[in-house]
């Protein structure tokens, strides 16, 4: 226990060296900047403190987060629910493939005008944009993961009469889970991108909207602070995702680490 905590601290220290160095460098280099578009980092930080750690956390960050979580959750659920039968049945897969390929080829931002028409400028539209983009890696990875299930395990299920829902829970989903999680990780970054784009397109609240508003009114340090906030937002989410991943796939990482060591 003590040793693992020590190891984590050690790793954290190594991982922090470069960001801190870059941060210090930028702080020093930009200190005397008179360029209107690249204000001193210290000013950006000052605005960051005033804006994002203040009222805007509630009025912009939380709405963004809410939309992202809603859209991402729907994408995860739908991706897995649609992906599993496609992975299990080749005939279904063959029938669905052309349609899937077509929809996947459409860049989700191109759907924003369509979705605005259908769902207006509200949250529904933004959530829908996130879903249309984030679902693909999750769905396709689910299909691949389910398809790639081990044939010996499949025969084991058959001989021990493990069928239906039990087979799904005990065999199909766990065996596809490492690949599903890969899809979810990609889906999350796509989701964040689309969250920002949809907010820039049409919104009064949210991180994307705030950055655009600052830019249009030439509040450059504020704009940069928004970019910084967005970066931290994405970083925090990826840390949370990594924790989830480590926990949900404990068996997988355990097995992989063991294989690597031997």
């Amino acid at each position: 226990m003590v040793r693992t905590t020590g190891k984590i601290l050690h790793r954290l220290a190594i991982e922090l060296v470069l960001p801190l160095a870059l941060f210090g460098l930028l702080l020093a280099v930009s200190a005397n900047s008179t360029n209107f578009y690249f204000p001193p980092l210290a000013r950006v930080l000052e605005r960051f403190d005033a804006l994002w750690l203040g009222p805007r956390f509630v009025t912009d960050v939380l709405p963004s987060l809410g939309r992202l979580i809603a859209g991402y959750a729907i994408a995860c659920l739908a991706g897995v629910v649609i992906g599993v039968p496609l992975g299990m049945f080749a005939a279904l897969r063959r029938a669905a493939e052309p349609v899937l390929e077509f929809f996947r080829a459409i860049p989700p931002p191109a759907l924003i005008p369509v979705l605005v028409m259908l769902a207006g400028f509200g949250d529904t539209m933004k959530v829908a944009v996130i879903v249309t983009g984030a679902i693909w890696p999750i769905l396709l990875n689910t299909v691949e993961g389910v398809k790639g299930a081990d044939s010996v395990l499949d025969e084991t299920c058959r001989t021990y009469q493990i069928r239906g829902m039990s087979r799904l829970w005990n065999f199909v989903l766990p065996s596809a889970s490492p690949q599903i999680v890969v899809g979810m990780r990609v889906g999350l970054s796509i989701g964040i991108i689309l969250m920002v784009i949809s907010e820039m397109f049409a919104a009064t609240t949210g991180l994307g909207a705030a950055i655009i508003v600052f830019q249009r009114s030439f509040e450059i340090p504020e704009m940069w602070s928004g970019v910084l906030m967005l970066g931290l937002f994405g970083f925090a989410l990826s840390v949370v995702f990594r924790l989830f991943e480590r926990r949900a796939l404990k068996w997988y990482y355990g097995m992989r680490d063991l294989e690597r060591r031997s």
Partner: protein
Amino acid sequence: MAMNAVAVVSVSHLNKVYQSRERRVEAIGDLTFDVAAGDFTCIVGPSGAGKTTLLKCLSGLLAPTSGAILVNGHAVVGPPAEMAVVFQEYGRSLFPWKTVRENIELPLREKKIARTERARLVDEALEAVALTGVAGSYPWQLSGGMQQRVAIARAVAYQPKVMVLDEPFAAVDAQTRADLEDLMLRLWSELDLTVIFVTHDIDEAVYLGQRVLVLSSSPTRVLDDVPIDIAGPRSQATTRVEPRFAELRTRVYRGIQQAKASVHG
């Protein structure tokens, strides 16, 4: 013993052809044999003889091209509930996301066995294969021999009438293999089991079996059916040096040689 006992597994004129667009492989030509209740039957044959194909047909995983298979008097159309299969690829037959206990317990949950009874069966099975200490471990944390014992424990806890094993010890070291062989013999004598054991190892077949079926190379037929009349309990130290063991071994060996020769000739 095999003469008057009831046939638990009955194979008649089994034929299996793998047909794909490019190739047609007649893996099993014409196989007919019965396995009596409580018998320990070993099946040997050269590599590619269709042994795995035969077991897959027996266990309902593959449909025969023609012929009939009866288990307990019922035609096999899917995996029979009273049969447990131990695969050669033991590493791939255990669920890596489940602990040893969960692996053994899952088929029992499917059989709707109550929780306390399940726990008892799992504990007994683990004890039978001398693995009580690792119930909470994951299969991939165990050695190959231990993994195969978990697979056997799962089959034992399932309480099958027939246990079918496909070259189960082919990939473990010699000492572990000897231990596992004796484990199989002990389980067979203690439990009310009919065992069908496929191996390519002649010594193993003669050491374990009450009877050895020698298969020809594909298209497979039964070349020889050798009753193993070695009296008394088997022991690694003494059985293998008995004269009768050597005679039987030679007979099976000649059969296999003949099977191989027929391929080249």
